[in-house]
């Protein structure tokens, strides 16, 4: 039988703030375990939360970029459950009054452009990190209390490609905003996928399954395609689909059962009594919105207008934020954007890949690349000659000097041949 899939995605993003969501302890990744915590993060008795306004500002940026309506009255609620990674026995979140509602993001797939609606964005705090060893469990509280935003999509996606494009588009937007590191492999961006399938044309939804903790964007697509096939096979065999939480194993390419859901958990949500509702000043919000970093779609527009690049080139350039910023550096002393773009996307990228470097780690100087391109344009050297100096260029050398040297050497060689 043919099936149609319905996919919704919940994304947790760690906000890049100096301190935690409700405490003054520093936020940092990769520090020695349990060195970035204080009594509040550890849930010591008598401690009280204090809202980090830097996190609120970053959440507002995310809401604005994703076209959500912002609730200027910030409130928090408690989500009560016992778990060893949850110091207080409850998580402070925004169940009843999310900071943003009803937004969207545009995605691009092989079928063209599509709008994916975003139901809500709410702020909350992260849990501690658990390390399960054979005989014991270790807990690192550095992560506990890190500000998170949870971005909840509407179930608007229908296959792995769309889901992957959605996650990529979100990642790019948040990266451009600078509100999060959005590194799935480090866990600063975490993705939970809800997926159900039903016979094609059916108006009712099938039983929902959740796939948790997918660790890369490409695995989002893979996990979903696997899961659609798994569920379709079950239905084809006349078997029942249970409501389950599964995880994706990137070694086998399969989703694996974590637990079956027996009814929903009652989190006993109620308003956090220790945080008074905060009325955000309209001007404060406007000021944040006016000073946001350039968004990918804004940059696309600017590149089209300023540099006259093709949509294809623009997409690729902007897809790599660092490369795009390097491009602009080169353009400060270069004339032909198309040539610069070509060089960056072919010779430079090729060299970086081959040498395991990135545009941020390379010694390549933007003005040197501009010089080299100018020399070709001015007919001083041929393209072939230019390719010969790529290694030197990438080592940070000035192409003019390099070429001068080479010509000199050549003439010396010629000189020595004259009897």
């Amino acid at each position, binding site marked *: 039988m043919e099936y149609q899939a319905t996919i919704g995605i919940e994304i947790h993003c760690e906000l890049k703030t100096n301190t935690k969501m409700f405490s003054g302890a520093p936020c940092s990744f990769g520090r020695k375990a349990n060195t970035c915590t204080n009594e509040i993060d550890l849930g*010591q*008795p008598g*401690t*009280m939360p204090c809202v980090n306004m830097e996190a609120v500002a970053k959440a507002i940026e995310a809401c604005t970029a994703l076209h959500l309506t912002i609730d200027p009255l910030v409130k928090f609620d408690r989500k*009560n459950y016992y778990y060893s990674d949850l110091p207080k*026995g409850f998580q402070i979140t925004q169940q009843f009054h999310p900071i943003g509602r009803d937004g969207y993001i545009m995605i691009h797939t092989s079928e063209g452009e599509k709008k994916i609606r975003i139901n809500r964005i709410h702020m909350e705090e992260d849990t501690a990190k658990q390390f399960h060893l054979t005989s014991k469990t270790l807990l690192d509280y550095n992560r506990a209390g890190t500000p998170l935003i949870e971005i909840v999509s509407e179930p608007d996606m229908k296959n792995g490609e769309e889901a992957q494009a959605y996650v990529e588009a979100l990642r790019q937007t948040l990266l451009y905003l600078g509100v999060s590191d959005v590194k799935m492999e480090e866990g600063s961006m975490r993705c939970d996928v809800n997926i159900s399938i039903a016979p094609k044309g059916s108006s009712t939804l099938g039983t929902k399954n959740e796939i948790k903790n997918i660790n890369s964007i490409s695995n989002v697509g893979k996990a979903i395609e696997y899961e659609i096939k798994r569920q379709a096979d079950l239905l084809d065999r006349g078997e029942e689909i249970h409501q389950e939480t599964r995880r994706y194993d990137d070694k086998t390419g399969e989703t694996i059962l974590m637990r079956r859901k027996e009814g929903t958990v009652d989190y*006993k949500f*109620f308003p956090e009594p220790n945080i*008074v509702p905060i009325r955000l000043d309209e001007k404060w919000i406007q000021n944040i919105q006016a000073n946001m970093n350039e968004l990918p779609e804004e940059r696309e527009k600017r590149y089209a207008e300023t540099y006259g690049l093709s949509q294809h080139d623009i997409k690729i350039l902007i897809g790599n934020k660092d490369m795009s910023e390097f491009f602009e550096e080169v353009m400060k002393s270069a004339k032909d954007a198309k040539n610069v773009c070509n060089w960056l996307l072919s010779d430079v990228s090729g060299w970086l890949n081959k040498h395991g470097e990135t545009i941020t780690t390379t010694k390549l100087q933007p003005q040197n690349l501009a010089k080299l391109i100018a020399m070709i344009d001015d007919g001083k050297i041929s393209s072939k000659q230019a390719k010969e100096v790529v290694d030197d260029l990438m080592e940070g050398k000035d192409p003019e000097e390099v070429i001068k040297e080479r010509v000199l050497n050549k003439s010396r060689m010629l000189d020595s041949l004259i009897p």
Partner: protein
Amino acid sequence: MIKEMAKDVANVKERCQEAYQKAVVLQEKLNDAITLVDPSEQLESLPEGGLFHGVPIALKDNVSTKGILTTAGSRILSNYVPVFDAEVVTKLKKEGAVIIAKASMDELAMGGTNLTCYTGPSLNPWDTKRMTGGSSGGSAALVASGVVPMAIGSDTGDSIRKPASFCGIVGVKPTYGRISRYGIIPYASSLDHVGFFTRSIEDACISLQALAGRDDRDMTSSYREVPDYLSLLDSDLTDKKIAIFGNVQDALTNETTKDLFTNLMKQLEKKGAKVDVFHFSEDLMKAMLPTYYLIANCEATSNHSNLDGIRFGVHEKGDSMEEIMTNSRTKGFGLLIRKRFVIGSYGLFEENQEKLFKKAQKVRRLIVDELNECLKEYDCLIAPASNDIAPLLNDTSRDELSDGYLIVENHMVIGNFSGYPSMTVPMGMMDGCPIGVNLTCRAFDEVTMFGIGKAIEDITGYKDLTAEVK
């Protein structure tokens, strides 16, 4: 008394050591402390001056003290030593106060008897066969027996104002947000207040002066400026309008209490106050206790979810994290606490919230609305703090569904529902034991409350009343 002590710089060491020694001796008889703190070390590094310079004080054991055991009266915290000071401790230390005891309390501040502390009951200094009342019973006993002139307590239902009545001292619960709660092991956050006991209104003024003020670590604390309570203290009652809590007066059964109260009202009138009777809806009054229990237990079950034996506190063994948590909590809490957690959890279940937790909050609102009506007209609502003197330790006679119990013994929770300032002052003696009268005033109007309290103190003459422990 505090003012004189703070001025008497020469006798600081002697005074604090004496207070400590007295606490040690009385501990045998009263069991009113959980930890006695030798002041020697603190005396080495006292700051210059301060409102409490060299004044010995006690703290309820739910006040976090860096490096000093803080148990909140519960077995699960019986090994817990905080790594930080509560804001009130920081403030008091800055003013030169010297901590000599962490006082006994009902487990996790739940209960009104001080019989549920894991170290056993604390006894009333006026009559050791009687309760101190709770949950701040140890603090009240330490002040009443003259060990310290001031002790910190906390008040979620009437946990300062009831023991103040039973111990014959002043018990103050200021406006919600007036004193920071940071570092106070909570009971129910929307009802919890930090307050204190003293033996005179003047000492109460100085204490609030030292303790009040905004703390950025407690978002619910107020930015309002702290007035100079002592210099504003004015016992003149001319033009003061006082409302007798009619429902409480009607439900009193103890004739002596009635007489003491009626007499006091006459005296207040004589001093120029206009005294009327104000009745609240009887239905709301009878709903007060169940409303309180629901809100308090719901918040408490969530607040105390951090007590799981994993990061601090008494850790029981188990094969999994879940088992460790279950075992630690089962063994760590007393029966009453476990019962309240079950009730609180039940009230928070999604299917019950509307008819229990949320309904309780609506009733709370209605009660506060009526109080607002009353205080629109009157400066102060007044009633006896209890029907009788402190109950005997083995007293099991109370009928929890009688008007006497529902209204007379629980009316002070109105101060917690509203967050308005409320305090108990001694009113009289019966069979050698004290009983107090309770005042509730408008939000942040502690100045008026202290003024009326001072007038009562002048009338009764119960200033610096100290129990001779036999």
